[in-house]
C-alpha cells in the first residue's frame, strides 16, 4: 500500500533522513519509533506530500506522491504533531471545511461530518468553538479531520502526545478500530502503545533505520521481554558506537 524507497532528505548540510526504505501492507498499523529529532516527522511530511524528498520516492498504492500530488493527497488523512485547527471555528464548521477541502462532494458532506464525529466521539462538542475545547478533544477533532474523507492511508504524527492516560487509551482504541479499513502509520515515543496497537515497528535513529520487524519478533530476536528495553538498547548501542 505504502512503499517508501531509498528516501533521503537533506536540509542544507544536515541529513535528516538517510536512505530509508520500508513498505506498509494494506490494513496494517506501522509504528514509527525513534528519539526526538530522528527524522520521524520529516519522513511523514514527505509521505503526505507536504515536502518533496531530496532523493528516493514514496508511492501510495502505486502512485508516486511527488508526481501525482493531488491524487495521492486525496488518499491520505494526516494528523500533524499539532492538530491543524482553526481556533475561531466551531467543530462542525471546521470539519465541513476540511471535508470540502478533501474533495468530499457537497451532497455527502453532512453525512461525512456526522460519521467522523461519531467515530471519534465528539458529538457532544459539535457546536462548540474549537478554542474552548480541552486538549483531548482538540486531538480528536484533528483525528476527525484526518478520517473525514475515509482515506485509504492514515498518517498520525504522535497522536497521543500531551493526553492524559485515559485519553491515551481512548485514542489508542480508536486507532485500533480504524485499522483494517485504513492503512496506518503512526509515530510515537510511548512504547507500550506500539506493543499494543502496531503490527509492525520501524525504529529509526539519526535518519537511519536501526530495526524493523513485528513487536513479537523483535523481542524474540533481542531476547528482551519488553519493547522498551529493546528500544533503549538499540538507541544506546548506536550512541556508544559514536563515542
Amino acid at each position, binding site marked *: 500500500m505504502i512503499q517508501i524507497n531509498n528516501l533521503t532528505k537533506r536540509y542544507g548540510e544536515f541529513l535528516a533522513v538517510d536512505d530509508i526504505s520500508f513498505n506498509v501492507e494494506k490494513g496494517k498499523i506501522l509504528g514509527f519509533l525513534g528519539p526526538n529529532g530522528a527524522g520521524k516527522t520529516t519522513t511523514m511530511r514527505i509521505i503526505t506530500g507536504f515536502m518533496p524528498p531530496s532523493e528516493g520516492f514514496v508511492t501510495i498504492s502505486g502512485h508516486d506522491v511527488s508526481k501525482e500530488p493531488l491524487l495521492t493527497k486525496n488518499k*491520505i488523512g494526516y494528523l500533524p504533531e499539532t492538530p491543524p485547527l482553526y481556533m475561531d471555528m466551531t467543530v462542525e464548521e471546521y470539519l465541513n471545511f476540511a471535508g470540502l477541502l478533501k474533495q468530499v462532494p457537497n451532497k455527502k458532506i453532512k453525512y461525512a461530518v456526522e460519521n467522523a464525529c461519531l467515530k471519534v466521539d465528539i458529538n457532544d462538542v459539535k457546536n462548540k468553538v474549537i478554542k474552548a475545547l480541552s486538549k483531548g478533544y482538540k486531538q480528536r477533532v484533528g483525528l476527525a479531520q484526518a478520517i473525514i474523507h475515509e482515506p485509504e492511508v492514515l498518517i498520525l504524527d504522535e497522536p497521543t502526545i500531551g493526553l492524559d492516560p485515559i485519553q491515551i487509551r481512548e485514542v489508542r482504541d480508536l486507532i485500533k478500530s480504524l485499522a483494517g479499513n485504513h492503512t496506518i502509520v503512526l509515530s510515537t515515543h510511548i512504547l507500550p502503545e506500539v506493543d499494543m496497537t502496531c503490527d509492525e515497528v520501524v525504529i529509526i535513529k539519526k535518519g537511519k533505520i536501526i530495526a524493523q520487524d513485528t513487536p513479537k519478533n523483535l523481542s524474540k530476536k533481542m531476547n528482551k521481554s519488553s519493547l522498551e528495553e529493546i528500544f533503549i538498547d538499540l538507541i544506546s548501542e548506536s550512541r556508544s558506537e559514536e563515542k
Partner: protein
Amino acid sequence: MKNIITIFNREFRSYFSSPIAYIVIGLFLVLTGVFFYLLTSSFLQYSANLQWQAARMRQAVPPMNVNQMIIRPLFSNISVITLFVVPMITMRTFSDEKKSGTLELLLTSPVTTTQIVVGKFLASFLLYVIMALLTWVYPLVIIIYGNPDILPIGIAYIGIIGMGAASIGIGLWISSMTENQIISAMGTFVILLFLWLVGWFSNFTSGGFSEFFKYLSIIEHFNDFSKGIFDTGHLMYYVSLSGMTLFLAHQSIESLRWRS
C-alpha cells in the same frame, strides 16, 4: 473552482468571526468621514465667502465645481487611507496559518497552491470592495444637495478598487513570507508607503528615471482616476501589479515545501 470557493468561504467568514473586519471597516469609515466633513465644510465656507464678496461687488457669483472641490480631493484622501487599512486586512492571511500549523492542512490537502492563493486573495479583496463601496454615502450626500457629474465618481471607484487589488496582492505576498502578523502588517505598510512616495522622486530626477519613478508610484496612477479620467494604462498597472504579487506569494508558499 470548487476548491477556490472552499478556501474563499472560510477566509471571508474568519474576518467576521474575529473583530478584524468590524475594526478595519469602522476605522476606515471614521477616517474617510472626517475628511468628507472637512472638505464639505470648507467648500461651504468658501462658497459663502464668494457669495458675500459677489454681493458686495455687485457681481454674479462665480461658478463652483463640486467635482473639483469635494469629490476629487475626497477620493485622493480615501486612496491614501486605504494604504493604512490594507495591511490590517492582509496581515493574518498566511501568517496566522503558518503560526498555527493550519497551513500544513492546506498543503497536504488535494488542492493546488494557486487555488489557495486565489481563494485567499478573493476573500481579502471582497472585504476591501465592501469597505470601499460603503463610502457611497458621501457622494450620495453631494448628489442630493448639489449637482456633480456622476460618471467621474464611478471612475474614481474603479481606481480605488484597482488600487486595492494591487495593495492586497502586496499584503498577501508579505504575509506569505512571515509567521508574525505584526511584521506582515509593517512590511506591507512600508512597501505601500514606498510605492506612494516614490512618485516624489520623479520631481528630483529627470528623463527616464523621472518617468520610471512616476510609473512605479501607486498613487500617480490613481490621480487620473480621481479626476474622472479612465485610462486603461493605469488599470493595467494595477492588474499587472496584482498578478505579479500573487505569483510571488505562490512562489513563496511553494518554497516552504523545499526549505521548511
